[in-house]
């Protein structure tokens, strides 16, 4: 994961030495993000079709019959997806940054 090399420099338009490093890092990150977007989009479409499509009816039934279980599952799903996607996006970004470097 990208980390700014000099916080002292952030926010200033021109910052000779550390600022130069920061700008180079930033452009690398932006390039990697641009490559990451289409890769991520493909993964998301596959995810929609495979997982969410299959889960729909089961979750609908659970909400009507066991609301407490549904509330727990809903929270677990959203936090679980957050952690999983965070891992995927970080991994993609790291791999792409290494390739575009």
């Amino acid at each position, binding site marked *: *994961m*990208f*980390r*700014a090399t000099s*916080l*002292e420099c*952030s*926010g*200033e338009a021109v910052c000779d030495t550390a600022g130069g490093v*920061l700008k180079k890092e*930033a452009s690398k*990150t932006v390039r990697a*993000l641009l490559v*990451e*977007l289409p890769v*991520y989009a493909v993964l*998301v479409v596959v*995810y*929609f079709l495979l997982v*969410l499509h299959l*889960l*729909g*009816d089961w*979750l*609908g039934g659970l*909400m009507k019959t066991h*609301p*407490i279980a*549904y*509330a*727990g*599952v*809903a*929270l677990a*799903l*959203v*936090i679980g*997806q*957050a*952690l999983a*996607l*965070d891992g995927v*996006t*970080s991994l993609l*970004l790291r791999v792409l940054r290494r390739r575009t470097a």
Partner: protein
Amino acid sequence: MIAMFFPISGVEISPVYLVIVGFIIGVLGGFFGVGGSFIAGPALRAVGLDWHFAVGTDLAHIVGKSVIAARRHRALGNVDLRLGFIMTFGTIGGAEVGAQLIQMLKRAGNVNTVVSYVSIAIYVSISAFMMWESWRTLRQRKGRTTAAKTAARDESSFRHVTRAIQRIKLWPMIALPASGVKAISLWTIILVSFIGGLFSGFLGGGAGYIRMPMLVYVLGIPTHLAVGTDLFEIVISASYGTFSHALKGNVDILIALVMHTGAAIGAQIGAIATQYFAGPKIRLAFVPLPLIGAAIVAYTLLTGHKL
């Protein structure tokens, strides 16, 4: 656009639309530490989702987005965990009181009018104050040398009030070393978090629009840390809200999960972007956000149409 059927709420919505909305809210959340409910709620209602589903689903989506953004900020050293855990008590207490106030107003039959006027007043006040403060701070910075600017890169024109609040000796006093606060009354922190939770329960969403400014101006937390710690609090208040709304059948978790796929990448971009801006600039850029919320509520009040 291809529409996808969501069996829980019984609506057909384009997943592309949901992903784009999630992405925009993700960027805003990662950068400003807000949940983005003032955009997500109207965006969901605009595609035909019932009001109660819009509120509950928005909260569920906020949980996922804030988990990512808070983790990002934690990695950047922008979360004061000690402060965050202390604030949890006030946040949950405030959220419950806010929800009870809504129930009272519902019984009195004027919930929409009261909530609308209160939210407009709050949104406009926050924007006006932050614009005044950050503009003044940036003007003061102009005349200084680069070294002086670097030394005080997160200064605030409101600092004298913050210092006066920090001097209130109401036992127990605690230190927040991660935020550079040597001593502050525990009750001040609880009060700030209680107010944040109260607005979260009363107006919906994570209430980052009020908690983030209070962390900076009342507790004296540096802006970058305030953004990260606020996100941590939003995870807690929104999780509590999601569970409570899901029990009442107000959450379509599938819509939240689809929105969240966009927010995941947006939050990452927003969090990275904070590293390129000084505190007063982040605060100045924050100004239009509550105004957008106020404009949406005013439109709904004046026209009777829900956005």
